[in-house]
């Protein structure tokens, strides 16, 4: 992973600030909705890549965390102030990430992938069971007074925080540890790096951001039940976007998330019944033709141009 320069971070913050002006400049609800959708996917794809990029452990469980965030809001949203609700959501998501990480991250990536593959399904079944047998309500209503503008700005603020945190991590000791781990885990172990702990910290951070995204988005749903909030398609889209943009760089996933969110919006509106098929096909195309993602492919191309000019 290449270290992003400070000017890249400032540039991106500038773009976020500009993006934040959208609801002020235009009162068109459609564009705001689009902005919200784009922001949530940029957020999740970036958070996903924060972990899966350096460690190359593929997480297929993004929606498990997203759903927990949404459910936290659904369950305690009307009883507690929103910041507290968000804290609860983050705590719940982090706890799950901790459990999953402790069980799987000391082993090879295969176990992790398999575990996360079914995790969303497991969480969904557990929530369903709990709601059917214990609370005897399946499905909850969310009637919170949160405007779309608020949601949009919350998402952008979270995104700014994520970029800053990730930038800071890369320059920290943890960042160096991850770079060594990414190149040669055997070396990492022999120079005193607790490889499992490094991966665990990163996984919890990544999952916390995904959980919080779900929590922020929850008021938009008005009604959720386990089937809606733990929809595997979301996990899938997050992975595709991060891979297309390039999970190896901090701002790569943005390059993947924006065009794909727009594409998927379009496809799900035009072909609602065939969406899954088109999604799967799009994914396979990306895996075949762009193995390291657009960003890495671009930088490789840039390097080649630079070498040719030199």
């Amino acid at each position, binding site marked *: 992973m290449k270290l992003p320069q400070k000017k890249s971070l400032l540039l991106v913050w500038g773009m976020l600030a500009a993006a934040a002006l959208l609801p002020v400049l235009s009162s068109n609800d459609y564009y705001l909705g689009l902005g919200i959708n784009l922001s949530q996917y940029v957020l999740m794809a970036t958070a996903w890549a924060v972990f899966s990029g350096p460690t190359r452990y593929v997480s297929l469980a993004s929606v498990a965390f997203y759903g927990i965030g949404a459910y936290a809001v659904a369950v305690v949203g009307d009883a507690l102030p929103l910041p507290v609700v968000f804290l609860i959501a983050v705590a719940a998501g982090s706890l799950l990430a901790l459990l999953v990480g402790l069980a799987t991250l000391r082993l090879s990536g295969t176990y992790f992938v398999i575990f996360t593959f079914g995790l969303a399904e497991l969480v969904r079944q557990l929530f369903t069971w709990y709601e059917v047998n214990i609370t005897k309500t399946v499905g909850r209503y969310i009637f919170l007074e949160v405007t779309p503008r608020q949601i949009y700005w919350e998402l952008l603020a979270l995104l700014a925080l994520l970029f800053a945190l990730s930038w800071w991590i890369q320059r920290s*000791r943890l960042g*160096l*540890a991850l*770079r*060594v781990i990414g*190149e*040669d885990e*055997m*070396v*990492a*172990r*022999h*120079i*005193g*790096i*607790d*490889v499992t702990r490094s991966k665990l910290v990163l996984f919890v951070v990544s999952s916390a951001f995904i959980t919080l995204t779900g929590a922020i988005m929850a008021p938009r749903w008005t009604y959720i039940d386990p089937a809606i909030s733990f929809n595997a398609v979301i996990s899938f889209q997050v992975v595709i976007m991060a891979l297309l943009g390039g999970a190896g760089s901090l701002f790569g996933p943005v390059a993947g998330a924006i065009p794909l969110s727009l594409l998927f919006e379009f496809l799900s509106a035009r072909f609602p019944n065939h969406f899954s098929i088109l999604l799967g096909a799009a994914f396979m195309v990306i895996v075949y033709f762009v193995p390291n993602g657009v960003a890495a492919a671009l930088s490789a191309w840039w390097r080649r141009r630079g070498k040719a000019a030199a």
Partner: protein
Amino acid sequence: MNSSAPMLRVRGLSRSFGGLRAVDRLDLEVGRGEIVGLLGPNGSGKTTAMNLISGALVPDAGVVEFDGEPVQGLPAFKLARKGIARSFQLVRVPCELSCLENVISGLAFGPRGIWGEAARTRARGHLARVGLADKADVPAGELTYIDQKRLELARALALQPKLLLLDEWLAGLNPTELQEGIALVREIRDSGLSILMVEHVMDAIRALCTRCVVMSAGWVIAQGQTAEVLAHPDVLAAYLGGAAHA
């Protein structure tokens, strides 16, 4: 820690892979400030023994005592923090990191956890010691093989270890480089470290090792003062195959 105990004491160390006994009841000791050679033909279990001692592998049986403390079964990163550093038979230096970053990675996660400007200063010191001062910002992947070996050593020294495990560090060197390498290893020992080195290069073994342990097919066939061991008929037979005449 008991300062009269050897730096490293291994008793009955064993490890199998499936049906193959790679290391069979290995006993060896490295005294404080001593350089011990671990010799043997290819496939005799030397690198497996190194991996068991460095924590890369877990033994099936046996005891490893480091500085008086039993450490067998501990993961490599804990042993690194306790003071065991190593080089690898096929040199391993993260290619995308610069030489300076490579050495800093040895400083940052060790027992003293040095970071920032202090780390950069010390790292330059370590690079100078192995003769790489002018290559601090060069990516490790662009170095020559010899320089990569030096870098690996600098990184190992950055951990400020008490015990250094060298796995064929002096292999593949021309005579000048070999003499420089031998001098460097001697200097490292003189600065207070104990060294266990797997080696094939006879000149290096005779020049550096006070004692040698010879392995063949997983177990020890000879152990003792270097000159005696190297003249031992079993050792000659193991290397040359069959009965040998001195």
